């Protein structure tokens, strides 16, 4: 038997990310598949009315998000959740805000078939592309794995360039890791623990407007490129980074399932300013397809 490692394509990550990214044995990365996936990602034939592609909600210009509160599907149908920025999802463990997909291959199919999103059927996808549906999802997943954000000013600072961050941003980093306790959830190279928490956002009018993964819990999103992915939270209800910081500073929306780590932070105005400045330093360069 030949060593399996000989078949693995290693894509050099940008500064700040791990070299190892999990890739399923059943869908190893290949240049051809990545190229096909990229083509499909921008192909509007994957929507029933031919008006939308994956990239419509995951626009590279907006760090693969869409700038809307909630995603918009064919015929202008609005969903209930914001389209997440899909940078560095190759490092993810589960997918969608509620984590219902366990692989990118599985994830890639759902929006295509969702009547409120791209509204297709598997048969129609195969007819239009001339590909088996499994090949479509494998290619899309392969491409998504190549969408990587790194080499931010923070990454350069973390690599030893003491001048890569301003004094204000460094102060913000200290708040991020210290008083604000952001690293409780936003940890690691991708600034997410990939876990689910009730931050109180879904608590509206005395009840949970969205159960999420259960009990109002939603997955912790990456903070990479966060300055480019407004509005924020799973429902896009917070317009700016300042709003997000204010929200956590006041301890979120009290509710029976509120995560115990969400509680008033008592940040000063200067600390909030610094924290937002630091978050902006997480914008770097995004590579895709290579």
């Amino acid at each position, binding site marked *: *038997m*030949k*060593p*399996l*490692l000989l078949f*693995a*394509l*290693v894509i050099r990550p940008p500064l700040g*990310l*791990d*070299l*190892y*990214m*999990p*890739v399923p044995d059943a869908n190893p990365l290949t240049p051809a598949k990545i190229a096909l996936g990229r083509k499909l990602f921008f192909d509007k034939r994957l929507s029933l009315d031919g008006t939308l592609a994956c990239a419509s909600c995951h626009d590279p210009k907006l760090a693969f998000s869409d700038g809307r509160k909630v995603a918009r599907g064919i015929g202008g149908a609005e969903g209930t959740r914001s389209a997440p920025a899909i940078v560095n999802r190759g490092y993810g463990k589960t997918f969608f805000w509620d984590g219902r997909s366990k692989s990118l291959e599985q994830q890639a199919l759902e929006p295509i078939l969702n009547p409120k999103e791209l509204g297709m059927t598997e048969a129609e996808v195969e007819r239009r592309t001339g590909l088996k549906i499994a090949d479509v999802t494998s290619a899309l997943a392969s491409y998504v794995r190549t969408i990587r954000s790194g080499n931010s000013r923070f990454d350069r600072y*973390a*690599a*030893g360039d003491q001048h890569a961050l301003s004094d204000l941003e460094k102060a913000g980093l200290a708040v991020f*890791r*210290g*008083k604000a*306790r952001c*690293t*409780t959830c936003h*940890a*690691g*190279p991708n600034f997410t*623990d990939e876990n689910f928490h009730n931050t109180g956002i879904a608590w509206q009018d005395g009840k949970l407007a969205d159960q999420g993964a259960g009990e109002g819990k939603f997955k912790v999103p990456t903070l990479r490129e966060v300055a480019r992915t407004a509005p924020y939270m799973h429902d896009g209800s917070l317009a700016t980074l300042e709003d997000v910081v204010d929200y956590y500073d006041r301890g979120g929306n009290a509710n029976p399932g509120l995560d*115990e*780590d969400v*509680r008033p932070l008592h940040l000063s105005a200067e600390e909030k300013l610094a924290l937002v400045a630091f978050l902006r330093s997480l914008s770097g360069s995004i590579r895709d397809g290579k």
Partner: protein
Amino acid sequence: MAIEAILTSMNPNESDLQPSETALESWKEIGAYLQRNAVTARRWEKEEGLPVHRHTHKSRSSVYAYPSEIDAWRAGRRVVPEPPPTRPLWKIPAFAVTMLLCLITVGNGVRPQVASAQGTQAARQILSGPGTDDTGSPSFDGRYLSLTDWATGDLAIRDLISGAQRRLTSNSAPYGDGYAFRPQVSRDGKQVVFSWIKPSGVELRIVEADGSNLRTLYSNREFSYLEPAGFSPDGKEILTVLNAANESDKIALVSAADGRARFLKTLTWGSLGRLSFSPDGRYVAYDLRTQQGKPGTKIMLLAQDGSREVTLSESVTQEQVFGWAPDGKTLLFASERTGTRDLWALSVIDGKAEGDAKRLRHGIGGMRPMGITKSGSLFFADNNGTNEIFIASWDWETGRMVVVPKPASHGLLGVNRDPVWSRDGKYLAYVSGDKSPGKISIVNIENENERQLSPKLSAIQRLTDWSPDGRSLLLMAFDEKNHEGAYSMDTQTGEVRAVAQAEGEQTIFQPEWLPNGKEIVYYRRDQTASPSHVIIHDVGTGSERQLQTGHADAGFIDTAISPDGHYLAFRAGGGSYEPVLGVVPVTGGAPRELFRPDVSAGRVDLIGWSPDSRQVIFDTKQRMGLRNVNLEWWRIPIEGGERRKLASDPLQAAKIRFHPDGHRIAFAGTQGGGMEIWALENFLPQSAGK
């Protein structure tokens, strides 16, 4: 102990034994026959297969043994001659301290001893005694051992044939520039890489084996700690573990030429165990704790180019990577999957596990791997001492023990800690066991009867106090849902109830009862904020009040309630704060600073109170790398006055507990010798040894 356990396989065939003579009828008799105490006999039975029989018609504790069986067993295990005890037991703790002090001044001879009686599996002692250090690694040819010279903090290398040891770094003064840690020798023996730890941070340094070309390879303030795990087989890269404080562990490969780092993988902080480069340089095997605070482990195989990772083994128990056999296809690891810690081998072909793991050795105890040589010798360290609870009497005037200390831990083996007296002085409780959560043992001091309780907790951090009514014990612990806090355990039933639980990032330390039996006192620290507070917590109502010490921002290191319950002594300071020792009335009122040491006093720690509640006992010591030296005990009156030295070079015990009679003390100490380094040989399957 591990070494002895390894040799268990050399026991003679039991069918050859003729147990017809008069039996030894108790642990005491068995111990006496072995010239050991009953504790040791029980441990040898548990860990090494000492032949002990049980009367099945009687209670579980009714044991007997035959001298001939013991003789045969002893003959089989006496591969490495074990000297008879040369010191009375009461000198053992002092001996341990003395040996510790010797670590910094004396070298050590190599005492290799042929181990195999049967020409098969063998353990050879490499080093023991003063100066023995287990933080380094053997060279691939097995001739040299890298180590830290704890007298100076320098990196050193020892020729295991000639016994010569030389330093490869030269501190301007002992620990003046920092100290070396975890040195690893390159496969060709030409370079040594090591952590260099200094007050301002830690660096990865490298030096030629002749001491030339010392340089810093990698340093980064983002990482609070880093250490090398080994060279790649071609010597071009160094497998390195880096810790970003409280956030993550990283596996990296650092270029031995220019220090450039490739970060392979980030893991949850505290989850990464031991790593080992495969001999072909293609993989890194490592063990990974799957859940914080719980024993589940995965053994992973990560491609050195980051292209792939597979799980080689998954267990609900503790496992640890030991390294690769010379064939490059056999991964050795320790596992507790069968109930004891054993040495296992797993065949790994082309990046995948082939077949089931095979057990190579049973009962390896606390064996700590240091490296595997090209001939297949597994170098490992073992501390042949065991932690036991001792009781002694103390003369306050001379500062000396006046009665021989005797082990109080009759019932459990090896790992005992945190003794506390009952308020009436009739009982002593302590934590026992090296596996979470541990058990609570309670000894009746008068008749030495001992019983054990197994509280339903996931982990016991510390046993801190006995309730005033004698009905419960107070513990710092995690409950079964992993909630951290102060818990009360019923001394009869073992039933546990939460007394005060920590919230979020908070941790509760050193809970103690006030004499009223209604309130407990502890200090609470938020891991992400600097102030820590002394809290008086009403157990009935849950209400709490803060005790103002004037040193909240400094953070507390320890607190202790006076026996009469009127005062709290505290030791505050740490990090950038100067240490200070003080007291504050429990009812409130002005705190009083007792002692603020200057730099020359070294480290200061609170020990407790004099039995009359009028003096605070503390120690001072110098920190030499990882060791404490120049230990002295002091007492200082709380009403004012000079501190007075109580003892020099007293017990190196973490916490002394004074009996209510004011004379007896209880403490956890080490029984037995010290660090030893061994090489296990001829233990690999024939194919793996090549």
